[in-house]
């Protein structure tokens, strides 16, 4: 066991700080402060990605020949810490943690040349078209059809819950190309070059927090060249499974959770407890805050343990455990946030939550963010494989057959 510390790392930190000093603008910080979802405000997240890409830091984990930074784990941590310290918005995962790594592994040379630059720079944004109205947890039952038409496919059907489809200019999706055999067979993985194709319509869905984040996407004989297929026809399920590895692995939720925890602690120190003191001084609250912090730390260390090659790195249950633990920790945190915000969390402040809004929050930024974050974070136990599904997977691994 060995943690890299010391001078070299501090020199790297200085480099990061200098870069952030030179490049962080107030709108980026505002977007970070107004992030009430795992998905940061679109425009600023993509602008920030562009700035990082120009420095070679947008996708530090990618292979260096494709634009990765070649950082050590400790360097990646330092970078994440410094970004969180300034409250910067997280980058959107779709390009950098999903379709990018997938194409690096499984794309054709033409696909890599055509798509990777835009994926990395953020010039393109890719949305993920998997779920359908009747195929959520049971994704393999999907029915959006692609029929062969010469060198093209014609897609007809519907996708749902497609995050940021209304912002996207590209989409990766799963379609059914065969109804024979097992449902996992007969699925094909395709890339859409545009969201303005004839026959394609996007309809926004308003979430519990009042914001449009997911969309329905309708296909009526949408034409896609066969060259836009990743993997073989009818082998899309294994392509998607390959991608899952990146989707669930992801980065550590640690830094973002720690930042929210610190904000919670500060807010509790200001918040009238209705009994003549402040909430932070309530021993019962302190105990729960302590437990929450311990959970945040344990989840972060679980991630680091895996990344450092420890036992979790070889545990097939690790991705499911990480997903379940981190989602439930952020949910617990969000519940304490609305508790501290109390009444001040009840006004619906959609206008003030927009980046660049003319109006400020009714009380303060913490109170404004607490309720939308709490509501939005309910989704963390639903998307990317619900926690019920994850627990089943974990149990299947842990309990002897």
């Amino acid at each position, binding site marked *: 066991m060995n943690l890299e510390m010391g001078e070299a790392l501090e020199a790297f930190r200085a480099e990061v700080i200098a870069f952030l000093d030179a490049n962080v603008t107030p709108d980026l910080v505002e977007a970070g402060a107004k992030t009430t979802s795992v998905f940061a405000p679109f425009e600023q997240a993509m602008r920030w990605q562009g700035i990082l890409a120009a420095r070679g830091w947008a996708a530090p984990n990618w292979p260096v020949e494709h634009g990765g930074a070649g950082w050590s784990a400790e360097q990646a941590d330092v970078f994440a810490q410094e970004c969180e310290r300034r409250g910067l918005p997280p980058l959107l995962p779709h390009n950098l943690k999903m379709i990018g790594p997938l194409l690096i592994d499984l794309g054709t040379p033409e696909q890599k040349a055509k798509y990777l630059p835009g994926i990395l720079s953020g010039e393109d944004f890719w949305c993920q078209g998997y*779920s359908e109205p*009747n*195929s*959520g*947890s*049971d994704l393999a*039952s999907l029915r959006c059809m692609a029929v062969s038409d010469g060198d093209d496919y014609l897609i007809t059907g519907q996708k*749902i*819950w497609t995050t940021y489809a209304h912002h996207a200019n590209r989409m990766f999706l799963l379609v059914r190309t065969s109804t024979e055999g097992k449902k996992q067979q007969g699925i094909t993985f395709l890339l859409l070059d545009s969201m303005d194709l004839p026959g394609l319509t996007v309809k926004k*869905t*308003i*979430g*519990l927090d*009042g914001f449009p984040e*997911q969309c329905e996407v309708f296909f009526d004989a949408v034409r896609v060249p066969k060259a836009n297929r990743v993997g073989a026809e009818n082998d899309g399920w294994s392509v998607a499974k390959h991608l899952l590895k990146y989707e669930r692995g992801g980065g550590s939720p640690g830094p973002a959770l720690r930042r929210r925890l610190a904000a919670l602690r500060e807010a509790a120190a200001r*918040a*009238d*407890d*209705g*009994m*003549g003191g402040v*909430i932070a001084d*309530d021993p*019962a*609250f302190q105990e729960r805050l302590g437990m929450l912090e311990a959970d945040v730390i344990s989840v972060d260390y679980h991630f680091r343990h895996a990344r450092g090659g420890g036992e979790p790195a070889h545990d097939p249950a690790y991705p499911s455990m990480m997903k379940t633990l981190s989602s439930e920790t952020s949910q617990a945190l969000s*519940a304490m946030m*609305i*508790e*501290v*915000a*109390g*009444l*001040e*969390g*009840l*006004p*619906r*402040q959609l206008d003030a939550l927009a980046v660049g809004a003319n109006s400020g929050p*009714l009380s303060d930024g913490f109170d404004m963010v607490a*309720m939308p974050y709490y*509501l939005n974070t*309910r*989704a963390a*136990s*639903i*998307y990317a494989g*619900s*926690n*019920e599904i994850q*627990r*089943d997977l974990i149990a299947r691994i842990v309990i002897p057959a």
Partner: protein
Amino acid sequence: MDLTFTDEQVMLRDSLGKYLERNYDFETRRAVVAASGGHDPKIWADLAEMGLMALTLPEDRGGLGGSVVDLVAVAEVMGAKLLAEPWLPALPGALALAHGGAGEGGAAALAAFAEGGAPIAFAHEEGRALAEPARVAMTATRKGGELILSGAKRYVVAAEIATHLVVSARVSGAPGARAGIVVALVARDAPGVTLDAYDTVDGRRGANIRFEAVRVPAADVLADEDAGCDLLNAALAPTVLALCADAVGAMGALVKITARYAADRKQFGVPIGSFQALRHRIADMAMAHQKARSTLIVTTAMAEAGACAPRDLRLLKAQVGRMGREVGESAVQVHGGVGMTDELSVGHYFKRLLAMDAIYGAGRLHFRAIGAAA
């Protein structure tokens, strides 16, 4: 002992339920919320016609002299049907006016309310939820026979459509002292009253209100410093019971809707309600609802018998808030992606429950007080 509703109460519940079923489906509610912050004069007038406003007031004030059991009986139906009309938010103001020493203006406001006129808004909350009326801090000073109000109130629901506000303020003593609190009736458009109104997460309209040297004539002082705290408690006790009934109604609806969804929604070729993880979760929801409802019903009977101490109310309020959040969270989880949208009623029930937990003292405060002293 009888812990059931009377035939009359059952009839009233039925007719309210039927009325709302016919005239207030989820789409109608959505339209009313979007267009006018949850208040539709036609529906409001119909509720008054059913006697629901008069129900809240004593007979010598032109009311029907409804008991707390009556209030609980109808509020549960309102919660179950997701009624956004400000009947409940108007309740404490009306009760304070009815039980306080209201002058002519107050009597007229009350009479108008009883007949379906403007609600009387209750300007009492100040910060992160006042579990205890004695914590009122906004200041009032006496000048001649008048009261001068200065300060701010927060989260006053239905203030925009009210003609009058019932305001709590302090003439002496520090927050925490029972003595020194006055309750006053203030015209909403009185000089010095400014509203900063907003939509709330549960589909109503709230406002933060500033009072700048607002003059209140002696006739509009509902309770002076010896009686203010008691008047607030008298207004709040039935309100908290009704609010808990509304929340229990919402929980009951969520259990039903979620169980139905689990039976209908299929994944992997079978209803999701066949998966044990969800079965247990739904069973827990049903237990949480029953636990909350029994606590409500027995506490209501105690209140009716004059045997409900502030501590009993705290316990009910806190428990309903806790169970409500649990039921709401589970309802969303069982619905999956569609539970995260504003398109189903599920999320709206959930947000109603969250709002109810936050007002009049969050659960944390009440539990703490209960745990601190037997």
